[in-house]
């Protein structure tokens, strides 16, 4: 292999406008959505999806469905069939929909969710965790003793699509995040067949420190710059 200039490197990552990106999401998809609270949610992708597609029947894997977010908007439009996450109590509308059987909810402890995502992206299908052992959440789950302590068998999570919020991408598709907006985003990026990322800014290759890249481009499929009509 010979030395090459920056411009001559091309990866499999696509750089698209939001509308093109979300058009790749299949209907009734199982889809991961990053974010904790209102921080690190891919709002621009969700907004574009709401406005430009008719996708519904979604299964959403996300820590919660925050009121005021576009994920909540998507839910209010009746386009979410099932939610897998840790905390839905804060949205009265989600609680109401659950009582009226309009949404199915699968509740996981937050540490189980985060590890299930990371291991889902790592080819590990299941793991034992001490969390929830002996509680109602483990009622229908296998458990097993290791060194005299009880652990619950949890299956890892994968999905067709992940919508991810990052801070910057380089032209290869490498990602860095910003402060506590990182949360579940790098884990979901690893765990989906189609990882679509929204970023504040796209920079040239070489501008991100190789020691500092959090998500190497191998986990990324599509990058969208926020508010950019086309690339």
């Amino acid at each position, binding site marked *: 292999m010979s030395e090459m200039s920056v411009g001559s490197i091309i990866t499999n990552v696509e750089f698209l406008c939001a509308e093109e990106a979300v058009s790749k999401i299949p209907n009734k998809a199982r889809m991961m959505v990053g974010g904790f*609270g209102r921080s690190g949610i891919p709002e621009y992708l969700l907004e574009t999806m709401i406005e430009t597609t008719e996708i519904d029947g979604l299964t959403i894997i996300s820590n919660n469905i925050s009121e005021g977010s576009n994920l909540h908007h998507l839910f209010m439009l009746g386009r979410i069939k099932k939610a897998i996450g840790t905390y839905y109590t804060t949205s009265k509308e989600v609680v109401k929909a659950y009582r009226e059987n309009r949404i199915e909810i699968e509740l996981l402890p937050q540490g189980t969710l985060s*590890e299930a995502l990371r291991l889902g992206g790592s080819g590990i299908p299941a793991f034992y965790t001490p969390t929830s052992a002996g509680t109602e959440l483990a009622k229908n789950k296998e458990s097993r003793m290791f060194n005299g302590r009880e652990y619950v068998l949890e299956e890892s999570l994968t999905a067709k699509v992940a919508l991810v919020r990052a801070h910057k991408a380089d032209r290869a598709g490498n990602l860095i995040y910003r402060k506590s907006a990182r949360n579940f985003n790098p884990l979901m990026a690893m765990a989906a067949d189609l990882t679509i990322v929204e970023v504040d800014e796209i920079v040239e290759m070489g501008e991100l420190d190789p020691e500092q890249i959090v998500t190497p481009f191998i986990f990324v499929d599509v990058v969208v710059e926020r508010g950019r009509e086309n690339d």
Partner: protein
Amino acid sequence: MTDLTVKRYIAWRAAQELQAGVVNLGIGIPTLVADYLSPGLVTLHSENGILGVGPSPVPEDEDPDLINAGKAPVTIQPHSSFFDSSLSFAMMRGGHLDATIIGALQVAANGDIASWAIPGKDVLGVGGAMDLVVGAKRVIVATTHVTPKGEPKILSKCKYPLTAKGRVDTIITEYAVFKIRQSKLYLVEKVEEISFEDLNQITEAPYEIGGNFKTVVREELMHALS
């Protein structure tokens, strides 16, 4: 004593349990603990991916990308770091946190804790509580002694769904401090403002008097506090 004064006393008393190390504070009374921790000696962990949580910012410095687990804007400190949720829960589950201070609906004499669900109600939120309680080296429950309706919270057996079994180390209320050792409850501190008779009335769980038992005068402590 106002509700807030009670809460502040409990928070202050809980803070006295922590000399140094890394702590995760739950929502409610535990959040107030931050105000009373030794500055610079205790580092706060937030499960959404911050080690070294600083105080609340002035409004003009608020950053939507910098919030704590309670979704409130925070700041960072010179030794802070950011990481993903998986590493954050590795810290908790892996036993790396020196302590957590959390609230509870019910605590049992054997260290069981119930803090996330009420029987008969929909259970739609668990968050990070289970990992926190299962993983922290020391679980300190900071709670009012009884519910708003006056029902005991320290019980011989939890009636609500458990958060974790046998993990509570210390219980701190506005009237007393209990330690749990080998699944047994010991009273180690009582405020002079309550009699043993009254304390027994609001404490459903049986307890023994701990070896280092002492009585404190809450009014004096609170005076120093304000």
